[in-house]
């Protein structure tokens, strides 16, 4: 097989759907919302054409409230399950995510960040950052959050999300936006293989063994405190990921994730051509936040500039870790940064 057969030019949504199938997706449930619907539509075609024996369940739910609970059922039964949504839908899923967190149910949600708050618009923003990283669900639930900055990376992160969700038995969010979903990129479809999962903890009936309880109610404070301590211990073992782009000798260090990081990287490269030593630190896991890596990356930098598509959200994490002045270049309302504008604004 030559490379021509495997390299294909795909739109983000299509690539994510393909990646999900190749990585062993078993059940998809979703409720349409722009700009996430293309993921669901692509999966509908792949499901109807029996592209994968493992992909056995697909249907459109009645709401995002139903979606998250359908996911909880499939996840509690030990199967790889996923949905895609956008801000308003994610708000509706928050209760279920909290239950899934304490019950340790693996499930994956792709959140295509649109303009908010409110109905906002369907243009790209990064305004769900604090919602997904700090309080997605009541009671302090903390899903893992991944943020791709290219289609290729989004595909890899779908597989990674399946793996992490089962390894840690935790909900995993992929936070992306309409630019990545609608962009075209040439990708290699053969690189992803199905994730194999251990499901011997799951609820499928006792089948001769001991019963399994997938539960989030602990009425005894002492018992619940112990359960929460266990969840914290588990959380601490999750590895934060980040990427350094010309950080070592960067006097000006951009900190950005997702599509903003891509633009910041271009800006940094252009600035270097004009002898401004710029670099970029890009968090890949937004939760856990790669704070120690950031501290290390920022060691030699004079200026720290956060570029993000909101009023200033990740900047709070950057300030927390660096404990120094941090500049912010915000874009919002669906206006996204151009390289020139970023360069202009840091003059």
């Amino acid at each position: 097989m030559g490379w021509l057969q495997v390299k294909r030019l795909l739109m983000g949504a299509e690539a994510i759907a393909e990646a999900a199938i190749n990585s062993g997706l078993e059940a998809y449930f979703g409720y349409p919302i722009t700009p996430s619907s293309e993921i669901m539509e692509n999966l509908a075609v792949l499901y109807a054409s029996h592209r994968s024996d493992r992909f056995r369940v697909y249907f459109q739910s009645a709401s995002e409230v139903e979606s998250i609970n359908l996911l909880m059922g499939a996840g509690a039964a030990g199967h790889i399950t996923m949905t895609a949504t956008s801000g308003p839908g994610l708000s509706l899923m928050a209760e279920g995510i909290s239950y899934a967190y304490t019950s340790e149910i693996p499930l994956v949600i792709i959140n295509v960040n649109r303009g908010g708050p409110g109905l906002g618009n369907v243009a790209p923003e990064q305004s769900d950052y604090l919602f997904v990283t700090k309080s997605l669900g009541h009671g302090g639930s903390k899903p893992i959050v991944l943020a791709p900055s290219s289609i290729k990376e989004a595909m890899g992160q779908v597989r990674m999300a399946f793996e992490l969700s089962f390894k840690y038995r935790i909900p995993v969010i992929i936070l992306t936006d309409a630019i990545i979903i609608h962009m075209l990129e040439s990708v290699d479809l053969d690189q992803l293989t199905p994730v194999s999962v251990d499901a011997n903890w799951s609820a499928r009936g006792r089948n001769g063994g001991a019963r399994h309880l997938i539960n989030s109610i602990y009425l005894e404070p002492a018992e619940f405190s112990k359960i929460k301590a266990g969840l914290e211990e588990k959380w601490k073992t999750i590895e934060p990921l980040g990427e350094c782009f010309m950080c070592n000798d960067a006097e000006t260090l951009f900190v950005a994730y997702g599509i903003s990081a891509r633009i910041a990287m271009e800006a940094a490269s252009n600035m270097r051509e004009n002898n401004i030593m710029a670099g970029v630190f890009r968090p890949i896991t937004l939760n856990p936040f790669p704070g120690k890596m950031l501290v290390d990356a920022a060691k030699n930098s004079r200026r720290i500039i956060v570029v993000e598509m909101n009023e200033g959200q990740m900047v709070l994490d950057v300030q927390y870790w660096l404990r120094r002045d941090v500049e912010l270049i915000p874009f919002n309302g669906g206006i996204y940064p151009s390289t020139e504008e970023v360069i202009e604004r840091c003059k």
Partner: protein
Amino acid sequence: MKQLSAIIPGAVNTYCPGCEHGLLLKLIAMALEELGITEKAVMVGSVGCSTLAFKFLNIDYVQAPHGRAPAVMTGIKEVEPDSIVFAVQGDGDALSIGLQELFYAANRGIPVSIFMYNNMVFGMTGGQMAPTTPEGMVTMTTPYGRDTAKSGPPIYSCEMLSGLSKPSYIRRVIIAPKPIQLKDRVMYSSREANQSYKAIISAFKTQMKGGFSYVEFLGTCNVNWKMSILDSKKYAHNVSAKVYQPALFRDKFGVDFIES
């Protein structure tokens, strides 16, 4: 008596004295045993007094958020079609916050069994109005009686689900035992438990044949009705069963065997 494999050895149910929630769980355990499906059973916990079922039943269990059990059940059944999936939902859980999830599971005909305990109030949270509270009934949030001019009439779930084509078994029974006044004491009839048991068996049989089943059980909540146990049983028979008449609404597979 023989220990049922679906009941945790030595478990005591923690329901208020005189409540039929515990009886319902026991009847479910007996039905699982009789049909030989205990090993395949997964209970989805709803939120309400039935939440504590996992301390009593010794089977796989997944806790759903308030009202969402039918969605969680659907998720499990879709990926594990050989399992036997059921829930006990309160009338608030099923018909107030969770009406949409119930409606959609029923409309899709998902082969699961829903046992709805209708005590006409929110029991666990202390006796507030439920969608099933009859006209005029006093609750914590309707201190002068339910005013249906404002709140709308009570919701008849079996009748509502009968408007859908996919459900295969829909039945209403009364589970509160009928008081029988003897000369010197009161006895309780065993007929209600018997019929309830038969309805559970029929619901599971329907699920095993691939259909959606829903049984509404008229039960009591003497604590929140603020009545003696005896009066609550009388109320269930004199009021509940008049507002909500026990009947067989749907039986596509001909599995029902309750004598009329």
